[in-house]
């Protein structure tokens, strides 16, 4: 499997989740001090790295490639559908878009009512860990194919973490202009496409042009998602 595709997918998925985590960390830093925000973030990142380091190589070593594809492929399909349908709902106006500024204001208000230092560390830890857990699961799933695949997907997630952290430190404000929904749609399409290919490989189907079929599959899902947005918008207008 193309390493750049894996790295790009985990990069975008991680960037979306880390943008959401950054909002919570910034709220903790503003309301309870940057030490609490930093400690919570570092502990959560350490926990996530430990999960990836422990389960990635373990899965890769546990079974043959074909058996692993049969486990990981369907899992990626389900994850991809969950991401993509949420993005479709948001594009169609059926679900509220993520408002980082509103979330930030709500978190700051909540944290200022209880100024206990440990509370801030726990909130920062929880925010980064919960948002990062989906990314860790995706990285581990990709890494199940091989250690090279794990390195590519881990690299994508690490790059996203570095960029989002640097941007958060530089601006010290929530990222209100990041096109989160479009990024979630891209991740959904890629997870679903990779999941479809791996499931197919696992059950022995023959793709028309090898790994290159991935882009045709992705285009098919992207068109289907666009059609679903149109259908939901038309239904909404008629209702």
């Amino acid at each position, binding site marked *: 499997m193309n390493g750049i595709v894996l790295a790009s997918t985990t990069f975008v998925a991680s960037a979306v989740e880390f943008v959401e985590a950054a909002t919570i960390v910034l709220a903790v830093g503003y309301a309870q001090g940057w030490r609490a925000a930093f400690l919570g973030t570092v502990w959560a990142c350490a926990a996530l790295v430990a999960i990836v380091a422990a389960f990635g190589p373990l899965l890769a070593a546990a079974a043959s490639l074909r058996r692993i594809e049969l486990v990981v492929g369907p899992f990626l399909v389900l994850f991809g*559908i969950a991401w993509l349908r949420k993005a479709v709902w948001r594009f169609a106006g059926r679900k509220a878009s993520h408002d980082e500024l509103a979330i930030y204001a709500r978190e700051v208000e909540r944290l200022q009512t209880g100024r206990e230092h440990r509370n801030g560390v726990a909130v920062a830890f929880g925010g980064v860990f919960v948002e990062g857990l989906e990314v860790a699961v995706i990285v581990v799933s990709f890494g199940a194919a091989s250690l090279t695949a794990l390195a590519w997907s881990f690299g994508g997630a690490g790059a996203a973490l570095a960029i989002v952290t640097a941007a958060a430190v530089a601006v010290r404000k929530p990222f209100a202009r990041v096109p989160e929904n479009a990024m979630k749609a891209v991740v959904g399409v890629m997870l679903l496409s990779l999941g479809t290919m791996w*499931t*197919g490989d696992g059950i022995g189907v*023959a793709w028309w042009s090898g790994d290159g079929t991935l882009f045709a599959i992705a285009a*098919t899902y992207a068109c289907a998602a666009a059609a*679903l947005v149109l259908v939901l918008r038309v239904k909404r207008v008629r209702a």
Partner: protein
Amino acid sequence: MRLLREVYEFVTGGSIAAPAGLVIAAAGAGLLAARGETVLAAGTLLGTLVLTLAAATLERAR
């Protein structure tokens, strides 16, 4: 029981159509692949999963 429900929600986003469609897609494509119709199996898998995506999206869109 609650943990199982949490895991189900985490993996499927609470959808019923997605896991059901996935099972149908994999079973259909698997049967065709076992008979040697590997290209038809690929089309069946992709086509059924596109329908699954549609069903999962329309399932809760009110």
